[in-house]
């Protein structure tokens, strides 16, 4: 049990960060606007959460210009993918253990 909880990654412990990682796991990349629209979050919200994930080394940021407009793309790193998978597994295990302990299947 201890072990499972230690696998729950605090860096993903927020709806927006979880969302950002989920989107980036199944897409090659996502730009700022796409993330914003998908998650229904504000500019500042996305900016601060992506920054936090970037600091952890889970995602990288690529800035470029498309038609002279600045465009920011986010991609997951290998570390980020691994960490997120581990987090997912921990979530699943935690739920399974709980079902076994209480005997309720929900």
């Amino acid at each position: 049990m201890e072990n499972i909880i230690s696998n729950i990654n605090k860096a993903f412990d927020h709806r927006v960060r979880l969302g950002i990682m989920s989107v980036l796991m199944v897409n090659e990349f996502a730009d700022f606007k796409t993330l914003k629209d998908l998650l229904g979050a504000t500019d500042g919200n996305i900016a601060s959460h992506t920054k936090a994930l970037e600091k952890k080394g889970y995602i990288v940021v690529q800035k470029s210009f498309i038609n002279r407009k600045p465009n920011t793309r986010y991609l997951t790193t290998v570390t980020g993918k691994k960490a997120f998978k581990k987090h997912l597994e921990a979530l699943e295990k935690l739920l399974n253990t709980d079902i076994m302990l209480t005997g309720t299947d929900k």
Partner: protein
Amino acid sequence: MENERYLKDLSEIKNMMSRSSKFISLSGLAGVFAGGYALMGAIIAMWLLEGNVSPFSLPDLSGSVNFLSSSIITSLVLIAIIVLVLAIGTAVYLTTRKAHKNEQQIWDTTSRRLIINFFAPLFAGGIFCLVLLQYGLIGLIAPSMLLFYGLALVHASKYTFGDLKSLGYAIVTLGLIATQFMEYGLYFWAVGFGIFHIIYGIWMYNKYDRNKA
């Protein structure tokens, strides 16, 4: 209570993964309409061809198209284009409506990806059919249209409902069978583009749209 939060987390993750990679506002009803237009187009084409020697029974495949007057060919191409425009127009309209209802954007990464991946094989197929026309290989046009359209669907299915794949394979199979019965090309065309679309559209509508309406 922690538990409930984790469950919510997991469902949120699943939701985000599918919403960001698949365009799920594609309307099933649009398929029914597309099938209807295709059937109407096929019926008009049959009228036009009545009285002509069946254009699809080519005695010599390398022969010319001369025995089919060029005005009829122009009309047939025109019918095909009108069917295509009507089908796409209706699909865009109904899909936009559904996207609004789902509170989704009609023009985002997922829809763009779907459209590019759908039209790339279809465009190649369209050019190929024109080449067949150029060499007078009329009998192969209907099967080729079915084949390329089916492959386009299989290819596009990764970016929307996976169910599209089964329709794609069904149409590819039909196209391959049609190559062996070239004199019935128009009938195969009507079955593939008309009847398959209608069946599939109704099925999709029942599966995804009706309960939510």
